């Protein structure tokens, strides 16, 4: 209802309000999520990282399609099976004028372990057991076992100044005292819950930003963010709600930028237990055996889902049907896998073959405030499943409640989204579908407790294979094993959206980052 009225109001506004002139010196951007700290090693969450990555650099950084490219490291290679060597960029200066050297890299690798963090960067630094500074511009990092993903991990770790950040607390970063980086923007101020102001670093080693200053406003309410853009209070926003997308697109004062996201939305099916908590017969009595142990039932589940309908109706075309763990172009994507075709008759037949000619009953769980239109997706799927005979109830919960219950394995079928921040396949394979194993750190988010030993073997082989082309083959094979066995049910990849006042251009990114230095005046 509100959305309707708002849309109506937007249409009126569009036709009557002249575009506010954009000020060339300052860029104002509306962000959709709260930034909780400026400390780049405290909370490993996307909104925080997005800001930190503009003030600081990393050894290796990702381009808009998440391909790694040299940043503070100019090149890297393996010296032996256990040692990586990084050659550092020369002539890079911190915002305070001091030189960037290998000592800063060593310091930045040590710092995460010193913080009492709920979501630390130790995931990237823990494999490193030894650091050797060969000369001020060469550093060697040693791991206990062969570790081909070290460069990918280094694309997650911010390099801070060993001088400015020595002994610094998170509050020192919030105040700016320790916020001395090498990045395109210098820190100006951070007002919690309100804004982050940055100024251009004129001595930046890379391409200089087009704006003298940038101000990020934290506007977490979707309609308010759109209103701020339409009113000209901000020149660009991230995360355009799907409901308003069409209206904004038709507005000639607004330019929209989209690209496929690294985030895959999927279903976990409880496929390892003999009894599953939310599976019943049609009368609602708990079922004695768990139908999801049979791959045919999982396949029927997948065939019953009309992915194109979800994409078109629920997501307003701002999604792409998914056939595997990551969208095309990422490292380890199999060329042989396509999205499952919608086939309700085939689904019914498979259910009959598996011994459920009349289907069964299930409750499908999902979050209602995490992913784009998550609760509507779950409802749509429930209707599709009911049509093939699986009587489906729906329960959606706030993510804070949902995620804890999911980790306790309280669901039979549950929706989850996975943003592949690393840009390669070991991450989703390791986290989502590998057999749960605390000692090896595998299957951490495997809510279905799916287990496929041949796939585990391939994955573990890949995790220790340094040769890129060999590793890619192994990852493709592992992905094919999982998908063809319906270890999880991919639904769609999200689409990332930005909207800006006319006259700006932005390179849309798969990793959802909003970088002010990549916003340029339109040519």
């Amino acid at each position, binding site marked *: 209802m509100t959305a309707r009225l708002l849309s109506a*109001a937007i249409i009126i506004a569009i036709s009557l309000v002249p575009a506010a002139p954009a000020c060339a010196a300052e860029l104002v951007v509306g962000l959709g999520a709260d930034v909780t700290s400026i400390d780049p090693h405290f909370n*490993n969450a996307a909104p925080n990282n997005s800001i930190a990555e503009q003030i600081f650099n990393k050894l290796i950084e990702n381009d808009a399609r998440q391909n790694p490219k040299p940043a503070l490291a100019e090149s890297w290679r393996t010296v032996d099976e256990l040692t990586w060597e990084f050659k550092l960029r020369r002539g890079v200066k911190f915002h305070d004028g001091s030189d960037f050297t290998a000592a800063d890299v060593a310091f930045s690798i040590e710092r995460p372990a010193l913080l009492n963090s709920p979501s*630390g960067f*130790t995931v990237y630094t*823990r494999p490193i057991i030894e650091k050797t500074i060969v000369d001020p511009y060469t550093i060697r990092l040693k791991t206990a076992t062969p570790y081909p993903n070290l460069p990918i991990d280094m694309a997650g770790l911010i390099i801070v100044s060993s001088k400015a950040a020595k002994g610094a607390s998170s509050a020192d970063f919030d105040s700016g005292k320790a916020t001395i980086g090498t990045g395109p923007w210098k820190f100006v101020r951070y007002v*919690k819950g309100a804004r982050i102001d940055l100024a251009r670093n004129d001595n930046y080693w890379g391409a200089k930003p087009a704006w003298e200053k940038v101000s990020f406003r934290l506007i977490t309410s979707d309609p308010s963010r759109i209103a*701020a853009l339409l009113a000209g209070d901000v020149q660009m926003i991230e995360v355009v709600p799907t409901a308003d997308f069409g209206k904004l697109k038709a507005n000639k004062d607004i330019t929209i930028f989209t690209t496929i996201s690294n985030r895959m939305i999927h279903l976990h099916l409880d496929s390892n237990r003999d009894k599953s908590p939310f599976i019943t017969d049609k009368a609602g009595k708990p079922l004695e055996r768990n139908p999801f142990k049979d791959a045919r039932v999982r396949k029927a589940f997948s065939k019953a889902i009309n992915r194109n309908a979800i994409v078109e109706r629920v997501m307003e075309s701002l999604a792409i049907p998914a056939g595997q763990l990551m969208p095309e172009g990422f490292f380890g994507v199999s060329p042989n896998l396509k999205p499952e075709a919608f086939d309700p008759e085939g689904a019914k037949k498979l259910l009959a073959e598996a011994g459920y000619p009349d289907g069964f009953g299930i409750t499908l769980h999902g979050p209602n405030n995490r992913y784009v239109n998550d609760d509507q997706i779950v409802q749509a799927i429930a209707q599709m499943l009911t049509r093939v005979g699986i009587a489906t109830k729906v329960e959606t919960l706030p993510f804070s409640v949902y995620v804890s219950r999911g980790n306790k394995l309280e669901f039979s079928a549950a929706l989850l989204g996975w943003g592949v921040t690393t840009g390669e396949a070991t991450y989703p394979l390791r986290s989502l579908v590998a057999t749960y194993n605390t000692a090896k750190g595998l299957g951490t988010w495997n809510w279905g407790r799916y287990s496929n030993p041949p796939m585990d073997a391939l994955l573990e082989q890949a995790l220790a294979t340094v040769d890129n082309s060999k590793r890619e083959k192994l990852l493709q094979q592992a992905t094919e094993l999982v998908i063809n066995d319906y270890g999880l049910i991919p639904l769609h990849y999200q689409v990332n959206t930005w909207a800006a006042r006319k006259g700006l251009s932005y390179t849309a990114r798969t990793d959802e980052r909003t970088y002010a230095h990549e916003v340029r005046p339109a040519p």
Partner: protein
Amino acid sequence: MLVFIIRRMLQSIVALLVMSVLIFVGVFVIGNPIDILINPQADQAEIARATAALGLDQPMWIQYWDFLRHALTGDLGRSFSQNVPAVQLILERMPATVELALCAMLMAILLGIPLGLVAGMKPDAWYSKTIMAGSILGFSLPTFWVGLMLIMVFSVFLGWLPSTGRGHTTLLFGVQVSFLNWDGLTHLMMPALNLALFKLSLLIRLTRAATREAMLQDYVKFARAKGLPMRRIVGVHVLKNILIPIVTVIGLEFGSLIAFAIVTETIFAWPGMGKLLIDSINVLDRPVIVAYVLIIVCLFVVINLVVDLMYSLLDPRVRLAGARA
């Protein structure tokens, strides 16, 4: 008087204890903060490390005991997601909310009481009926909708006021305030009006009802018979007599304005404590949630105390020492 205040303090300590237990248990039942805060790249060992680092691996009663021990020294814990002391975080954000709430309350009082008096004295006049109809709208329209409409009309459509945020602030007695400069004031107007609307309607209705009742009282008839001007009858006799319930309501409502400005703050991206609370609940940032609720309880205790003291000023018949509150 002193006994009265001491007794109040003791009662509030009990209230604080009960609230802290409730919140602790509540957050514990909702879920594990680590589950939502942890980076998905973390493996089981990293999750265990983070859980232990925040003390969340302990049984609930030990966690609560630790909290109590620290609370007695004035330390309510550090925010899980922001790594600064929770109390500091809330106090940093409090001025924005208090300013917004004061501004809204002021609007509600300055408009609500006169309009209510007018509507109460001449209940059948067309303007009284208009006021009452308006107050029904103020009551029944949801805050988030009115807020969005205000933004659409005044920011997007007319372009008069900035849509969101707090704008420039000026330092006053060590506190950042918006109302002393034009940019800050323009940012303050819409959210304050949005927040005031419900309270305004409430005050109109309350004042009107009380006025209608008072106008029939003997002392009003007597004053009129004595030939006192209407201004004096209403301004002194009626107003003073109807003020006790109104002050009570203003007091309570002011507390709730500060505590629950959440919707308005979210829509207008106003960096107050309400927005902090909602962000903290979303990530189960328990130290902030607990500290917030405890601070709000303290706030209500103080407001109630002030209200009680004001009674005795307004009505000499009220004796605090005798009030077994």
